[in-house]
């Protein structure tokens, strides 16, 4: 039996631009280790056809991930996942993360989720992201 390939999901009705949805979804797979170094990504053309978006949208998402050091995206060779050294945490990015997390935690608390459950979910998620 062959293992099922990891999948990404975008919502055309979302206000979030498609390019960001694609880059975010792929980044989750990369951080979780579902796409390992050496793995080839689909061609820009094939992924654009499957997602129903323009070629440039997928190409831009690949460029963003290549700029972050996740992909080696050379013309004619397709995009390949590369080994990426973990960069030192940036203070302003941590502040930004904390702000966004505070909003999300407050929202879930107001919807009745217990603090213990929130902490457990966050821990499980952080530990599941191997890279």
């Amino acid at each position, binding site marked *: 039996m062959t293992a099922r390939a990891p999948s990404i999901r975008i919502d055309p009705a979302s206000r979030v631009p498609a390019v960001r949805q694609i880059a975010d979804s792929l980044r989750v797979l990369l951080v979780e280790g579902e796409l390992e170094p050496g793995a080839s990504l689909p*061609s820009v053309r094939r992924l654009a056809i499957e997602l129903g978006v323009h070629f440039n949208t997928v190409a831009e998402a690949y460029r963003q991930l290549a700029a972050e050091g996740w992909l080696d995206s050379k013309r004619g060779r397709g995009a390949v996942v590369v080994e990426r050294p973990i960069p030192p945490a940036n203070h302003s990015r941590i502040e930004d993360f904390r702000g966004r997390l505070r909003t999300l935690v407050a929202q879930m608390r107001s919807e009745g989720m217990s603090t213990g459950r929130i902490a457990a979910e966050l821990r499980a998620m952080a530990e599941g992201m191997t890279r």
Partner: protein
Amino acid sequence: MMQLVLCAVYLFTGALLLALPNLTRRGILFAVRVPENFRDGREGRRAIGEYRGIVGAVLLAGVTALLLSPPATIGIAAAVIPLVQLVAAGTAFYRQHKRLRRFSVRDAGPRQVEVTSAPERLPWYAWLGAGPFAILLAAALFLNANWERIPERFPVHWGATGQPDRWAERSVRGVYGPLIFGAELAAFFVVMALAAWYGSRRSRSRITMLGFTIAIQYMLGVLFAMIALQPLFQIPVWVIVIAPMGFLVPALLIAARKMSEPGQAADPTPEDCWKAGIIYYNPDDAVLFVERREGLGYTFNFANPASWALVGLLAAVILSGFFILA
């Protein structure tokens, strides 16, 4: 006899038009994306009933007119009646399309795709697409071997009354012309099948349509081989006219059954990019072929420049046919 043959062809196209609302996925009705069970509800049944009422009435009137036409006017009737049928069905379809748009499901939902770089391999049976060329080649070899038996002058076209109205001479173009044109058409369908395979989204219907395209190729191969062999075997014209239905009916039935299988999501094309439900134009979609909404099969994304190249290729094939078969 020819009147009966014309009636049979007319009834066949009429049956296809009557079945049109069923030749789509359950989530599509009159080229509008609707909830899966919509067609079983009051509005859905009413739309199908109204459409079929008009198409059925025109079909009945057409058959009566064809059967009652005197021999002198049968040619005109054979040209005008199918035209009226198509215009009436097209108008009735568009009327229901416009009416159902207020029930359309505008949001196709999120799209989930596998991140895989696995190559796009054609199914093994794609090689069957070479069969029609073998049929045409075999017919050419047979004609070459029996060249002396071919009459100096033979009919190549018959009028609506069944009487020949155009002849060809025993020349390379006259004898092999139908085979060359048949090969051109079959080659065009190979190009279309490959373009549809590599230029559409992965789905089960893509596999079904590849099989359907190969079936059409065989139909063309057999049809043009029969036309080419006609001078030797005097195959009755009605056989040549009716034979394509022998391919189309089972192929359509199989394709319709496969398309309506549960659990198959419709192509997630935005509603606003469909013009009158039949023309898809979406510059933000990289796809070349999308599932049709008004019936079985695929249609172009006309915003993709490759679609115009294929339309141009089809025009070139048809134009060459005028030259080859003239």
